[in-house]
C-alpha cells in the first residue's frame, strides 16, 4: 500500500490520472473505518486533505461555492444563513466527526443516509468535478446514481458544490435513536423558494438515493397560493393541508426494511417530519413578515 500526498489540486489530478485505482481520503470518517476493519485494502490511497482549492467557501453574487474538503464544523460556523445546511451539518456524528467529515465525503460515499445530501438536493446544487483534462458540473441528481454509486469518473476528483442561494426559510430534520451519532432512519429537507413561489422537498435514508417529492412540492405551493400566503405570510394555511403535505411527501419515499427501521416506520417518519417542516417554514415566514 502507498499513500500519495499532493499539496495542490493540479498535483492531485495528475496523481489521480496516473493512479485511477487510488482511493481518495479526506476527513477519513468513512474510509478509515473500512481500513481499520480490513474491509478494503487499496493499493493506493490519495490524501486530498491538504488541497487548499478544496478548503474554501466562496460567495459570488447569489451563489455559494462550498469546497469538497470543508468540514461540517466550518459549515456551521461560516454558513449559518444557509439554515438547512447548517442544521444538517449539526446532526452529523459528533463534534469529533464534524471536525473531520466533509460534504465531499458525503458525495463520494453517496450513501442515501448522507446528511448533507437532501439539502444539496433541495438547493438544486451542482457538483463540480475536475480531472487533468478539464472540469465538469453535474446536477446533484445526475451525480448521485444509486446506493453508494455516483458519477465520479476514475480520473476525477470532487472539487465542491455550488448552489443559488434560495430566498426563503428552510430546515433539515432527521429521525434516529438519539440526537448525536446516528445514521438517519429518515430525513427531510424543506426549502421554500419565495422567488418562484415554490417548495422543494428532499428525502434521505428512505430510498436507494436521495429523492425529491414533486407531488408534495406542487401541492404545498398550491395550498399557499389558495390561502394567499405567498403574498401575505400571515394568511392562515389549513392544518389538514399541512398534514396532507406530509402524506404526499411520504408517498414519494421508496423505503426498505433494514436494521435501523422498517419501511412503514420510515414512511410515517417522512410524513411527520414534512408536516413539521412546513409548519416551521410557515412560522418563519410569519416571523419575517412581523
Amino acid at each position, binding site marked *: *500500500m*502507498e*499513500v500519495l*500526498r499532493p499539496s495542490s489540486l493540479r498535483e492531485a489530478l495528475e496523481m489521480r490520472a496516473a493512479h485511477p485505482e487510488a482511493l481518495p*481520503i479526506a*476527513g*477519513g*470518517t468513512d*474510509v*478509515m*473505518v473500512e*481500513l*481499520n*476493519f480490513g474491509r478494503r*485494502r487499496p493499493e493506493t*490511497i490519495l*490524501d486530498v*486533505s491538504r488541497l487548499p482549492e478544496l478548503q474554501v467557501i466562496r460567495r459570488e453574487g447569489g451563489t455559494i461555492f462550498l469546497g469538497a474538503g470543508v468540514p461540517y*464544523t466550518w459549515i456551521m460556523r461560516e454558513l449559518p444563513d444557509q439554515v438547512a445546511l447548517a442544521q444538517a451539518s449539526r446532526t452529523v*456524528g*459528533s*463534534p*469529533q*466527526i464534524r*471536525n*473531520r467529515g466533509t460534504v465531499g465525503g458525503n458525495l463520494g460515499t453517496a450513501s442515501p443516509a448522507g446528511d448533507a445530501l437532501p439539502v444539496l438536493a433541495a438547493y438544486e446544487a451542482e457538483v463540480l468535478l475536475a480531472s487533468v483534462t478539464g472540469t465538469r458540473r453535474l446536477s446533484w441528481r445526475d451525480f448521485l446514481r444509486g446506493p453508494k454509486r455516483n458519477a465520479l469518473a476514475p480520473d476525477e476528483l470532487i472539487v465542491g458544490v455550488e448552489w443559488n442561494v434560495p430566498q426563503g426559510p428552510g430546515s433539515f430534520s432527521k429521525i434516529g435513536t438519539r*440526537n*448525536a*451519532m446516528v445514521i438517519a432512519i429518515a430525513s427531510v429537507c424543506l426549502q421554500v423558494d419565495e422567488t418562484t413561489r415554490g417548495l422543494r422537498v428532499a428525502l434521505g435514508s428512505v430510498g436507494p438515493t436521495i429523492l425529491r417529492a414533486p407531488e408534495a412540492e406542487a401541492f404545498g405551493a398550491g395550498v399557499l397560493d389558495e390561502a394567499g400566503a405567498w403574498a401575505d405570510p400571515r394568511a392562515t394555511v389549513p392544518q389538514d393541508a399541512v398534514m396532507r403535505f406530509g402524506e404526499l411527501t411520504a408517498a414519494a419515499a421508496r423505503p426498505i426494511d433494514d436494521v435501523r427501521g422498517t419501511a412503514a416506520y420510515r414512511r410515517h417518519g417522512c410524513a411527520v417530519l414534512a408536516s413539521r417542516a412546513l409548519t416551521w417554514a410557515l412560522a418563519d415566514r410569519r416571523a419575517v413578515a412581523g
Partner: protein
Amino acid sequence: MLVRVNVNGEWREADVWPGASLLSMLRDELGLRGTKNACEQGECGSCSVWLDGELVCSCLVLAAQADGRHVETVESLASEGGLHPVQQAFLDAGAVQCGFCTPGLVVAASDLLRREPEPPDEVIREALSGNLCRCTGYQKILDAVHLASGRMRDGAV
C-alpha cells in the same frame, strides 16, 4: 512509511504501515497508551486527541495525514505541578468508573472548556455526545465538567 508528527510538543518519527491510523501510531509505535482503542469507527470517542488544535478521533485519521502536523494527546494535560483541572475534577466528582472512556472524555471536556469556559448542561451534553461511557456514569461526568469549569474560572487550580 516514515511519518513525522509533533506529539505533545516534541517531533516524533515512526515507520508505519501506510494504512495505519494515527491512533495505531500513537499507541503501537510511540507507546502513548493513554489514548484508548475501542471501536475504531469514530463511535466511542475513546481515542480523542487534538490534531492542529481540533478535536478528532485519532482512529479516523490516517497516520500519513498527520505527517508534519501537531497532535496533543491526553498525556499533554498533566504537568509536573499536578493533574490538569479537568482530570482533578473527574477524580473529585467520581466521574471515573472502569476508566476506559476517561482519557477521551477528559480530552473532549478540556476541548469544550478551551472554547467555552462556562458551558450550560445542554452544551456539555452536545460537546460530549461523541464519547461513550458504558458504565453509564454520565451524570458525574457532567458534574465534573461543571466543577472544572468553576475552578478554572476561579483560578483556584
